[in-house]
């Protein structure tokens, strides 16, 4: 993704270049439009949205919708706003990301530097698990969570996200460590370092980029998950996405579009910030997730 453009570009006149820029800008507007709509309408009073132009800047500027979305809006039965669910998501995301990344790193290390008979089939099985439609596991998972006594809890969701994130984290680290020179492992073996010491002293210090990629990927996926949250969370463990959907699609009362938009931005904010701060790594994760093997 990095680097300058192709040395051989379309040889084109000024008009053609202007057309290219025009097309690119039109698409930029298309991609930015929904974000713009959410932003401007989240700071308008409700009647200005109803009677006014959705694409216009606010005439009356107000932060009330944000306050309402955060701490007052009716979610389900309680007028708590989204804040407790934001916290639920955080409490769920952090351990889920850390555990799955750590296990993925160890798995990638074993699958590349300590290969044994059958390592390929094991990796294949783990990789396929990234793609299964999760509908196929919903029914038994509900039962198992119940049997383990963690149904409806944040820990239950953490476990679910760790399990179904393992395929991807393993894939990321496997591909990264595959390119890591095996001679370094041999050198360290002769130097007398064992399995864990080699991992800790030789591979881990060089794993910064892939750790960032994996953490971002897992963070984005777990934060944005809806299906597992909707299926396995109780009211007091619901993640942000589920709460937002409850807020937006609740059929009772007046539709407070401005609050919905403010809530949507709140739900998008953590992943958006991660994307803005480290977009490069985000893209690398997407690529690694798409181009396998």
């Amino acid at each position, binding site marked *: 993704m990095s680097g300058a*453009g192709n040395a051989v570009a*379309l040889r084109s006149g000024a008009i053609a270049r202007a057309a290219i820029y025009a097309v690119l800008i039109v698409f930029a507007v298309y991609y930015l439009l929904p974000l713009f709509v959410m932003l401007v309408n989240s700071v308008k009073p409700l009647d200005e949205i109803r009677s006014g132009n959705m694409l216009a800047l606010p005439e009356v500027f107000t932060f009330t919708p944000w306050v309402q979305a955060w701490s007052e809006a009716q979610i389900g039965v309680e007028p708590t706003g989204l804040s407790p669910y934001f916290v639920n998501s955080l409490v769920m995301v952090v351990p889920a990301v850390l555990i799955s990344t750590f296990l993925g790193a*160890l798995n990638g290390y074993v699958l590349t530097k300590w290969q044994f008979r059958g390592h390929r089939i094991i990796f294949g099985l783990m990789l396929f698990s990234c793609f299964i439609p*999760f*509908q196929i596991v919903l029914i038994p998972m509900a039962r198992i969570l119940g049997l383990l006594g963690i149904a409806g809890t944040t820990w239950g969701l953490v476990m679910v996200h760790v399990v179904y994130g393992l395929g991807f984290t393993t894939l990321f680290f496997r591909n990264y460590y595959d390119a890591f020179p095996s001679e370094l492992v041999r050198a360290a073996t002769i130097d007398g370092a064992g399995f864990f010491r080699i991992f800790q002293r030789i591979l881990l210090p060089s794993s910064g980029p892939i750790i960032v990629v994996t953490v971002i990927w897992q963070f984005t996926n777990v934060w944005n998950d809806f299906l597992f949250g909707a299926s396995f969370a109780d009211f007091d463990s619901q993640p942000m996405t589920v709460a937002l959907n409850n807020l937006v699609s609740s059929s009772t009362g007046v539709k407070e579009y401005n609050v919905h938009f403010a809530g949507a931005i709140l739900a998008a904010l953590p992943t*958006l910030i991660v994307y803005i701060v480290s977009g490069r790594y985000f893209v690398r994760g997407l690529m690694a997730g*798409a181009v396998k093997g």
Partner: protein
Amino acid sequence: MPMRLRNQIQDLLPRLVLSPSFVLILIFVYGFIVFTGYLSFTDSRMLPSFDLVGFTNYFKLFGLRHWSTALGNLAIFGILYIVICTVIGLGLAILLDQKIRGEGVLRPVFLYPMALSFIVTGTAWKWFLDPGIGLEHVMHLWGWESFEFRWIKDRDMAIYTIVIAAVWQSSGFVMAMFLAGLRGIDNEILKAAQIDGASAWRLYRRIVIPMLRPAFLSAFVVLAHLAIKAYDLVIALTNGGPGRATELPATFMYSYTFTRNQMGVGASSAVIMLIMIASIIIPYLYSELREKRT
């Protein structure tokens, strides 16, 4: 400790370290697949039952109007989603590859929707496409009184609004995949083609685009499996409505299993989804992992 014993422990260690993850995957993925597969052959309704009833659920499933709607919708949504994302993604990638000033700004703008939750995307588009306050309303205010755009309320057209929102979310990602492919092409090949006198159009049609084959394949696999799994976006945008007009297999499975208490039918629909995805993913993974072998 005797050398041999210590060496044996060292030999076993990697397997020991891998085993927790592998056991988790084995149970929670493959065990669960078997379990759901088994349920699809039972008369489970609200709770799992273990009484086998053969293929009854599958016959029932394919007799249901909702399921045929879901499959029809998946065909419309899947084809349009894949084709439009690919066209836009490839087009933008080629344009961005023309030594564009401001590429560093445009690329992240094209790509940021991928970082958002489908629930957020659905919320934004739900109100933007709402005739009462959204696009139609805006056009009326701008003086285009006859403008009408109420697909999201239209049983026949609502599925296309899902395509619009989904394309918005994923096309930038496809762009990034093609751009990476373009940047990976050996410049000397392009120089050679230019020396051979290929025009820009021919250069792309005859040399560049054929060389992007792997990117096309990856894009297809990723988009196809996302289409089959599409759930959150439908819930947020239309909640399967109006009526059940935007039902997709994923929403079908959920509602039949958990709200209509037809677990057997729900399980069989999940099995069908798995078969659809597996028939795309397994050949792809197989070929990708095989190539690595050499």
